């Protein structure tokens, strides 16, 4: 388990729309470059399962920031739905 690598993946999306685009177009290929990421963690990231991330101890400052990076400010209701699902 590598909560810290999940945080690294998320943090490297911040302010970097090119990385976000690469991830969205081929998430498996994108995440393959992170050596310490385990299979279930890659799934959590692919699904942007912020609730599970938070449950594992990933910073919710980071999940919130990256969600907005990916979805824009209008994505907040969806974020809260996902967090409370």
């Amino acid at each position, binding site marked *: 388990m590598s909560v*810290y690598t999940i*945080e*690294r993946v998320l*943090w*490297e999306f*911040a302010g970097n729309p090119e990385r976000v685009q690469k991830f969205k177009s081929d998430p498996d290929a994108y995440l393959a470059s992170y050596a310490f990421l385990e299979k279930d963690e890659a799934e959590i990231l692919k699904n942007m399962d*912020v*609730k599970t991330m*938070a449950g594992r101890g990933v*910073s*919710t*400052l*980071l*999940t*919130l*920031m990256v969600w907005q990076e990916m979805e824009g*400010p209008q994505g907040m209701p969806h974020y*809260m739905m996902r*967090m*409370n699902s």
Partner: protein
Amino acid sequence: MAKIVGGFCMPHDPLITANPEFADPKQAANVMAAYADIRRRVEELDADTVIVIGDDHYVLFGPGCVPQMLIAIGELEGPLESWLRIERGVVPNHPALAEHIMKTGFDRGFDWAVAKTMTLDHSTMVPIHLTLRGNPKVRVIPVYLSSGVTPVIRAERAFAVGKLIREAVESWPGDERVIVYGTGGISHWVGSKEMGRVNEEFDHRVLSMVESGDIESLLAMDDEYILENGGNGALEIRNWICALGAMTPPRGRVTGKTLVYEPIPGWVTGIGLVELQSGGVG
């Protein structure tokens, strides 16, 4: 000799500038009036330097480096975030005094992380924008404590950093008149399922401790208690505690006067602004 002439605690909630419309208009007006009070007080106190204590929110520093305490000694600009509705620009700095605080820390066992240049985030830029921009006299020294991202700085250490800042300012041979800002919201849950909750009871408890200068009780609030009652965002009251340390004279005490308190779910935060006062000898 340089001296600390004032101190304030205030939020740095990015929604205050980014989405003012999310708050009840009357509450928002009360908060903005208190920021205006601080702007006026900074002028009245004839301050020329403001040390702004903020914290990263995983905006500035990534998981590759989480500094417990950082001082910026060189050129400043900000804000980093484009969505704050704050125009990005240069922030006047005070490299000589900043380096003196850095070196005094090294002499006393405070191994600062150091930013030789820095683009400031909302945690320092919101207070700078609302209370200092347009004041031609004031230069800024930013300090960042790890009170948002884990591992979080210990409360006792935050207080000690504040005392160190006071010692450093008072040993500076210039005649600077320095103000200290401790920034951050009181109760707020950031990004978690409780986001939007505000715990007024917790907020009033914190404000009461600050008003009476009850440092012992502030330091006694451990992480678990704060997370349960104030949310992950409330850990940044360690920035306030640092400012309280800077406002505590060697043989005196600090007290506070609340300028405004507003619980604002739309801004996802218990919003408090306080003026600190040093009393006693020293």
